[in-house]
């Protein structure tokens, strides 16, 4: 429960989260610590954050779909247990093992509102309609709808990202790799790190292990679930491709 304007400001700036990640600037840390020393509510928030960081990676039960974490873990274990003895040279044709490592069962999550405003005139609404198809796992229909939203001028980073994700989920790895490359080329967007991870997946499906490994290493620099998955997958790819 937030009690003061300062608490709200700290919440809006994700101060608790960034404090636990040690990502506050010295000035921000000074302000936040000076505040929470006398604020029970913010102390609770920090302690709750610690509890969440401890528990969240262990939560694997998802109501209807397989968990990301479970998927990555399963692939990693399968690769480690069953494929460790396989020796592949970079010049060989795409191996079934590498292709399998590029599998993506659950699509990148989209949490937005499916449709809003007038779908006939607004680029945002075109995007919303496209994402309704994406959320319904109708990826081959989502892709042209996202292209239409892009032509209508919707914000390019999310639209390009989910367009590439739609290609990936439709098993069009070449299109997916090209699409994620466009997202990466947009620069410092919130989608950049995930784009590296999923382009790595697409490249694995194409058997381009060295390029995939470079992308996974880029994504591995990220903290959190994606970073952890990227590190685990990169290690497995390296073992398999050795």
């Amino acid at each position, binding site marked *: *429960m937030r009690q003061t304007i300062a608490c709200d400001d700290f*919440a*809006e700036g*994700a101060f608790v*989260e*960034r*404090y*636990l*990640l*040690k*990502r506050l600037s010295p000035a921000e840390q*000074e302000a936040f*610590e*000076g*505040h*929470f*020393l*006398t*604020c*029970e509510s913010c*102390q*609770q*928030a*920090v*302690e*709750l*954050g*610690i*509890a*969440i*960081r*401890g*528990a*969240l990676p*262990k*939560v694997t*039960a*998802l*109501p209807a*779909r397989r968990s990301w974490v479970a998927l990555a873990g399963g692939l990693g274990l399968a690769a480690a247990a069953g494929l460790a003895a396989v020796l592949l040279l970079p010049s060989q044709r795409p191996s079934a093992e590498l292709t399998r490592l590029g599998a993506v069962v659950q699509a990148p*999550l*989209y*949490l*937005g*509102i499916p449709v809003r405003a007038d779908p006939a005139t607004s680029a945002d609404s075109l*995007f919303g309609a496209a*994402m309704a198809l994406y959320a319904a796992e109708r990826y081959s229909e989502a892709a042209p709808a996202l292209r239409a939203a892009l032509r209508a001028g919707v914000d390019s*980073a*999310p639209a390009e*990202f*989910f367009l590439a994700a739609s290609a990936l989920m439709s098993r069009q790895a070449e299109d997916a790799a090209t699409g994620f490359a466009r997202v990466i080329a947009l620069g410092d967007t*919130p*989608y950049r790190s*995930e784009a590296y991870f999923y382009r790595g997946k697409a490249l694995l499906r194409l058997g381009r292990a060295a390029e995939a490994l470079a992308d996974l290493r880029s994504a591995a620099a*990220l*903290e*959190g*679930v*994606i*970073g952890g998955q990227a590190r685990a997958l990169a290690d497995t790819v390296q073992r398999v491709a050795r």
Partner: protein
Amino acid sequence: MPEIFPDPTPAELSRLRSGIRIMAMHDLRDSDLAEEVAQESLARLVQALRQGRLQNPAHLGAFTRAIARHVIVDMLRARQRLAAAGTTAEPASDEDSLGAMVSAEQAGRVHAALEQLSAGDRQILRLSFFEGLTPQQVAERVGAPSARVRKRKERALERLRKVYLEGAGHGTAVRPTQLPEAQAAIARPGMSE
């Protein structure tokens, strides 16, 4: 003649102590050292207050922080000296040591509550707590309106906060032993410096 403000109340001391422990755990990742930092910092604080060194009571938090920061730096230097001499153990990992601030019971309740959240809410929390994204940045990442992300995050955190605090009379993990020790710190203000 500097103005001398009254000693902090037990409730204020308790809150300051919890906050100092958080600061110390954040930097030192060691429960015992964090406890030492809290005790030493409170003793120095009380002494400084009695000397009239706090000019504005509204700045108590910043004033206490400055004192605690000095104590933490002293502890870090001492630990570095011990490490150089090879007489200290390897510190535990970040999550292990910070996790010591949360009881097993609280951790279990939070875990159970997280399992009850939707996958979307958990994704928001992952992006927040593991990637440090603000609500606005989470919204950009997932392609959702920021107001909706903010609301979902607040609602999820409020649910978790409720289960986290279940069975506790107060929010922060104030240990039963803390208050008497804090009061003892007031009774012996000359123990530091």
